[in-house]
């Protein structure tokens, strides 16, 4: 088993081959996005303090409008760096969800389904992982960076869930040998383990025990793999590293860019903390600054590497925030008309799609439901949004629920 084989094999132990619709995918002309970087802002980004400023002035609270590098696009002053990159971004200002609480909203955004107590649905990344993984892939195709919901495979086998990277600067947890254990000692330990396991296998061996033996060799290959350096930021070209600042989110974006360069299909990056029910103008700017810096560095990074044409970068959140600032100087949840972003992979960059009513109360024109949003991402990767899979009890579910792809968002 060579290193290109192991992730695949390990994941596959005891399971049937994944549903590969790569053929079907290539027939769809749209397969322009080879990879997706999915930035999820959990807590609920305030659209009126970021990218939807074309509303009545009182709605903007303390946000000030600034011009961007693109005619016709203005943004909040909390995003000065991204203002200089708006030519690369498509702003979706009339996003809509049917969920107004965090767990349910997050679940809906990431899976396209309302949470139910009888089944868990796979996240979009798991659908991508299951649909596009081939034997040639040397790295897992679904990686989740940062804390927060880590990328569940729902009713799919666990092998399709995200490989979690809690801290981007530390890479995969426990992927390095304890430094106090020398290479020879480690080898000796593995030999002892082999002899114990083969003895056990003789008498009690079954599929499950073999599956553990396989996963050990998979994990070892991973530890020794040339590809593991994809997770090591200090191996990155200093000219790329210096594009980013030192915040965790920026480091996560750097890692995401690095993984995409290695061919990873779906990288989720979590940036939480957006739930500002009070003191939004005291507490939000530092978080806005993280997003502003990290995302603009990432766009530069991908552009410099020539990856932006084949990488779809999206920024989403579970819902937006209310047009009025509450007595506590915060904003409460608002599912009807919020903002998401897209960049790369041929998206109509430098444009705004959709609008809310001027009072900011509802999504008005160019409404994109969160299920449509997910359908569009899948479609752009060449996966049919109506792709159907059965849960363990035989209930059929589709990738994007009833969502429909929106080709008009692309050139």
């Amino acid at each position, binding site marked *: 088993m060579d290193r290109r084989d192991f992730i695949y094999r390990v994941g596959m132990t005891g399971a049937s081959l994944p549903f590969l619709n790569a053929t079907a995918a290539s027939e769809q002309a749209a397969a322009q996005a080879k990879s997706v970087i999915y930035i999820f802002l959990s807590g609920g980004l305030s659209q009126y303090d970021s990218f939807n400023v074309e509303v009545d002035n009182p709605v903007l609270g303390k946000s000030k409008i600034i011009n961007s590098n693109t005619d016709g696009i203005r943004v909040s002053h909390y995003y000065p760096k991204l203002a200089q990159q708006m030519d690369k971004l498509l702003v979706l200002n009339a996003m809509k969800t049917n969920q107004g609480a965090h767990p349910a909203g997050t679940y809906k955004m990431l899976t396209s389904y309302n949470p139910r107590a009888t089944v868990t649905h796979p996240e979009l990344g798991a659908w991508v992982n299951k649909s596009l993984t081939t034997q040639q892939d040397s790295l897992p195709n679904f990686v989740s960076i940062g804390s927060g919901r880590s990328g569940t495979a729902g009713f799919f086998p666990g092998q399709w869930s995200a490989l979690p990277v809690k801290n981007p600067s530390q890479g995969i947890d*426990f992927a390095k040998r304890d430094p106090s254990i020398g290479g020879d000692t480690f080898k000796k330990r593995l030999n002892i*383990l082999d002899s114990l396991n083969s003895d056990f296998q003789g008498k009690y061996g079954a599929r499950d025990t073999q599956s553990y033996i396989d*996963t050990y060799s998979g994990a070892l290959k991973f530890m020794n793999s040339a590809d593991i350096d994809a997770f090591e930021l200090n191996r990155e070209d200093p000219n790329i590293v210096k594009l980013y600042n030192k915040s965790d989110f920026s480091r996560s974006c750097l890692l995401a860019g690095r993984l995409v360069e290695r061919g990873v299909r779906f990288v989720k990056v979590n940036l939480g903390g957006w739930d500002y029910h009070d003191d939004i103008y005291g507490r939000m700017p530092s978080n806005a600054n993280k997003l502003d810096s990290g995302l603009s560095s990432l766009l530069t990074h991908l552009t410099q590497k020539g990856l932006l044409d084949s990488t779809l970068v999206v920024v989403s959140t579970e819902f937006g925030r209310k047009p009025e600032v509450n007595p506590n100087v915060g904003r409460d949840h608002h599912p009807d008309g919020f903002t998401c972003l897209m960049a790369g992979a041929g998206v109509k960059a430098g444009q705004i799609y959709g609008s809310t009513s001027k009072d900011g109360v509802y999504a008005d024109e160019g409404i994109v439901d969160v299920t449509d949003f997910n359908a569009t991402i899948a479609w752009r990767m060449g996966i049919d949004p109506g792709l159907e899979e059965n849960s363990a*009890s035989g209930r059929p579910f589709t990738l994007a629920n009833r969502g429909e792809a929106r080709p008009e968002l692309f050139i």
Partner: protein
Amino acid sequence: MNFNKKLSILTLILLAAVAFTLSLSAGESERQSAQAPEVNVSELALEIDQVVAAELKLKGQAQRPQIDDFTFCRRIYLDAIGRIPTIGELDRFIADARSDKRARLIDKLLHSKGYNSHWYNYWADLLRVKDIGDKLHHSGNYSEWIKESVRSNKPYDQMAYELVNASGDLYKPGNGATGFYAREPMPLDHLANSVKTFLGMSIECAQCHNHPYEDWTQQDFYQLAAFTSKTHLRVEPLREEEAKLYAKHRAILKNRDFDEWIVYRESIRVKHAAIYGNGTGYMRLPHDYQYKDGEPHQVMDANVLFGDMPEVSYKVSKEKLQSMSKKQFGPEIGARSAMADWMTSPDNPMFTKATVNRLWHSIMGSELVGQLGGLTQEEMGAHPALTEKLISIMQVSQYDTKLFLSALFNSRAYQSQALALTTTPPPYILDGPIVRRLPAEVLVDSFLSLKTPTPDKYVATKFRWDGFTHFYDKSKDMTAKDFVDYSVSGPGRQEFQNREEREAMKRNGQMGPKALWRVSTFGRNYKNHWLAMLMGKSNRELIDDATLEPNIPQILFMMNGLEAPEDTLIKRKLSQATTKPEKMTTLWKAILSRMPKESEKVLFENEPDDILWALINSNEFRFSK
């Protein structure tokens, strides 16, 4: 060691009859009055073995060899209390010369704190106690209710009845069964889950359409749902209380100080959050009903899925209700308790069958009847006579799960060599345990057996308070004005929950260092147990959602993340051993609960730390055999 209790079959029958003819609102106490069974565990074990032996004979298979004391000791610790024995516990058992030492150990473990820890994990998974949830769906009290039920060995049918029939205040200590309803807001999902939990059947398809390959129709589903109609979680005070007590200050605070208003709202919720509704017996078909046998919004009266319909006394006729607004579901008539009776009755064939199927699976590693959550009414498993025998033992034991487990543990079938399930013959005919991976919590708790000689020391022996139950308790005597004071001059919005949690912890007294807690002690207040999650613990969103499959992060942790600090039991034992063979024997006994084999002695030349690493990483450690 026998469970010397008195059995009265007559009482049982009478009870069932009463439960089925009356719509009992006080069903719990009626059930409790059943006298405890007088049964002889070793006789029950023998009955199991006779049924198994007959099948072996019929199939021309030999009995599996019996296991030695080492294997037995490890197995019974794992299955009864959810961890490997410590080296001291193993030594003591081996040294015990009494002929009935196995039965004695079984009895001892079933009555130990370790049992309470292990079986809490089991029931909490089945009943889906969420460790982390929305604030007001906080699971602390639910979790405590299950722990208390395990500690007091509450009969399982009673436990199930109390869950299905739960109502009243969410945070009232002792009323945590309400958590079963509070944990999920959608009543139809909840019903499908109740059926899967207690009857082992999967009817969720029928929630939205006729079941594709079974008989259940959407109407069947709605007729069952009619029993529980209008059952709901309400977190705010009832309208009259609100108007009389709270409304005035709520308005004043809202206009004056947002934080104070929030504290006012949240603290009042803790006092008043409750499960309301005891079932109207009526349900309406959904607005998109698509079949010819009914109309959208048509009123359905209650009916059970199978068996006799319990009596329900309606106050309004179906015709009358049909003529009313489609939002009307009729007055409450206690229909839910009738369903609880039907569902958890010894006369409900699915209830007992699902229960023994689950318990057998937990102990033997295989399905006795069929899929844990996907049984059919006809299904009796690969060995129907055994299924029947175990059903009858469960009934005779009056759902005393300890007694049932004791019968299983004392059987020759349980104490025979584990089989690795492969495709090679002979076929497995449910004659004993199969080789399977330890559940996540058992694996993690087994690390504790290497750390300390007393791994169960900090398992709770009594109710533990959390911020919610503590505040509820305090709020008993709080007037509306007290709530205002608490909101205005109390700990404040940022702090009030933390303060209540701290006070609750104080009230609980010493709980010991977290490093020495068993997984069952962790929970919302102490964060989720990341290592158990890594090992495949269920997140309890769904029934039977734990996994035993490997993944790369888990193995990386086992290889590179496990540490054995010097002050742990295993290291102390190692340093006490003077010779190399002694050290090696110590390691084998502590980790694999057995002596090293002759063929393994070539490994003795290695360093103890290397052997320690290899043994903990070995399949023999993580699998039960």
